[in-house]
């Protein structure tokens, strides 16, 4: 069935690294409880086995926030964080898979891996968001998102805690929108 023209988006993926917790705090807690899209997030964290990030945001947010387990069905209005030390992948069946494959650009979880597999599953129904970070993970991923017809949003480097990641994404994706965190939040709200 064709989707209504004004709501073409079906999912959001977000990637962040250094300074990412603070940037995410300007977005996730401000989404309404009935936000309809699923949001998958990779934030680079040290590979400790248990992560406190999902519970931290669950506490502050109106949407549900969980750490992804293998083959979790993707649901709208839920934020799924990649667990430490695993890649997070989106299946065509709209389930989440985990993988212990080698790190990509020294990162596991890798933003590129999430974005590329999500683009493959959602095609032009995907929004990719690159936030602050100190390496170039995510640039190739966002390029894939946009190659499939999805929308790319990048945090303005000048407002980022660390500007390398947004700058690499801008270089790879010249047609992406470059926005402050407030406007990224607004875009995500309007996309739903």
């Amino acid at each position, binding site marked *: 069935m064709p989707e209504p023209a004004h709501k073409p988006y079906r999912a959001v993926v977000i990637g962040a690294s250094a300074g990412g917790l603070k940037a995410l705090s300007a977005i996730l807690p401000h989404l309404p409880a009935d936000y309809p899209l699923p949001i998958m997030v990779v934030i680079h964290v040290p590979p400790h*086995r248990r992560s406190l990030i999902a519970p931290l945001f669950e506490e502050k947010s109106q949407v549900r926030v969980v*750490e*992804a*387990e*293998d*083959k*979790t*069905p993707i649901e709208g209005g839920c934020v799924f964080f990649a*667990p430490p030390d*695993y*890649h997070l*992948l*989106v*299946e*065509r*069946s709209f*389930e989440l*898979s*985990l*993988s*212990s*494959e*080698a790190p990509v650009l020294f990162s596991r979880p890798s933003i590129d*891996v999430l974005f*590329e*597999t999500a683009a*493959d*599953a959602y*095609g*032009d*129904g995907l929004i990719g968001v690159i936030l602050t970070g100190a390496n170039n993970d995510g640039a190739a991923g966002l390029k894939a998102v946009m190659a*499939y*017809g999805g929308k790319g949003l990048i945090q303005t480097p000048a407002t980022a805690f660390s500007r390398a990641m947004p700058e690499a994404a801008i270089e790879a994706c010249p047609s992406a929108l470059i926005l402050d965190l407030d406007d990224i939040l607004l875009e995500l709200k309007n996309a739903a």
Partner: protein
Amino acid sequence: MPNAIARTEDIELRLLLEAIFLKYHYDFRNYALASIKRRLTQARDQFGCRSFSQLQDMVLNESGMMDELLGYLTVQVSELFRDPAYFRAIREKVVPHLKTYPSLKVWIAGCSSGEELYSFAILFREEGLEERTMFYATDINADALRKAEMGVYALERMKLFTENHRLSGGKSSLSDYYTAGYGAATFDKSLRKRTVFSDHSLVTDAVFAETQFVSCRNVLIYFTRDLQGRAIGLFKDSLTRNGFLGLGAKETLRFSPHADEFTEFSRDERLYQKRGGI
């Protein structure tokens, strides 16, 4: 929606997996697509192929190609005592149960290059269970099995392994179990004297022994949910009543058709116990 290029790629990918199955009997057709597609894309680029169809031609017609591709199709990343809390829970909570059995069989399913096996062998020796235990270490990758049987790992990994072992509640020094030389750590062969290494597929093979403990960590994540169901079914059939199943740190039986046949024995460490009477 996926675009036309992606759809053509998918057709070629399915044909490649079918070709591998028909010729070599390795069945990756029901592996979770996202990960296997990524890895085969790497292989395609690495072997200088333009498409999965071209890779299919190579794997069907060039000798030795399948063995090389198997390195991409199977993921081999492990550590000794990976997730130390898992092994600590086994020591503290499972071992007391296992001590009530006169003889034990333990199945390390998807053992890869053997790190999990040596972890169990050391733990069972420390806990006084080794002499009554037979280990089965199985994998589909013959090359990985050979490495497992050799028990040689890069010396630089021993720092991490030693720390993991300590955090798992290790009762001895890890260095008691290997000899170091030429940048490598060679584990004592007495650790594997009670181990049978075997080629076994969770996708196409049947149960081969009655076991009291199955450890299968970070293997099922590469399967679709249907295929996971088959593998868990094998574990259930292999386990004795009240036998134990250990999964990876982020794996769960929650979405499995076999969920009702197990109880959560130690939730955080993903240790399950087969219910009595099944």
